[in-house]
């Protein structure tokens, strides 16, 4: 028997989840394609619905995260907003009082980066985008040191160069506002 050292290399999937599972499976019991049973429902409740992740509780913001072992990552996923929904991703999460998130808001037609620092929510950057309920939007986020860069469908870029909060924190995940029946799919985190 030999020991093999495995480390996260550039481009290597740290977490991949296509959310393929039986409808109604709680996300914290679901097994990701890469990462195993890795999700923690930090606030609210996510379930599998039609092989996608969907928020089901009536909390003001629902959050599920997983340990990804790297703070500096490239994260991609598909967001399928419902009417009045605001699906998105959570970055560098320590607890419900300290993290970052990006959301695509159908009601506001905006793509926004929000900082949550000691429980205070501050929008740091916003781009106007025509968000249509039921349409799939490809989100791509790169975290690198204190810079967070994100695009929606390859455009509508947001760049925030002062992301000092939690710059070394390695939990990332998904979020939605309320149980608006928005969906998230094809969640991939690479180093």
């Amino acid at each position: 028997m030999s020991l093999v050292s495995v480390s996260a290399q550039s481009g290597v999937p740290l977490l991949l989840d296509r959310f393929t599972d039986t409808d109604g499976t709680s996300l914290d019991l679901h097994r990701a394609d890469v990462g195993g049973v890795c999700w923690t429902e930090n606030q609210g409740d996510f379930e599998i619905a039609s092989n996608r992740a969907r928020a089901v509780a009536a909390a003001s913001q629902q959050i599920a995260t997983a340990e990804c072992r790297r703070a500096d990552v490239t994260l991609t996923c598909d967001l399928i907003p419902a009417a009045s929904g605001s699906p998105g991703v959570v970055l560098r999460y320590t607890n419900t009082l300290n993290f970052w998130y990006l959301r695509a808001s159908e009601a506001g037609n905006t793509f926004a980066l929000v900082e949550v620092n000691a429980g205070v929510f501050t929008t740091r950057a916003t781009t106007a985008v025509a968000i249509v309920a039921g349409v799939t939007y490809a989100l791509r986020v790169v975290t690198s040191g204190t810079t967070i860069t994100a695009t929606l469908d390859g455009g509508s870029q947001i760049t925030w160069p002062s992301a000092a909060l939690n710059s070394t924190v390695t939990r990332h995940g998904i979020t939605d506002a309320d149980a608006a029946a928005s969906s998230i799919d094809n969640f991939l985190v690479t180093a």
Partner: protein
Amino acid sequence: MKRAKVKTSWVGAGTARDAFRPAVADTYTLRKWQDVTGDPRPTVSEIEVECEDAVLTAIKLDPAYGAPAVKGEAVVQVEKL
């Protein structure tokens, strides 16, 4: 389309449903904005905005902001939404 830096106060309660955001973004339709200061709890700060020419003109004419609140005005290429 114009890009400029605008000095603005912030509104909101700092909650998930009512996050702090620049007051000027509540009043005017901005195509894009980004905080420049990065303060933990902003009260008054500078943001960089992209908006229609007429919107920037209106901000400069608004007594809440005025021409001195707008700096570094420049024409920008429009990115397809």
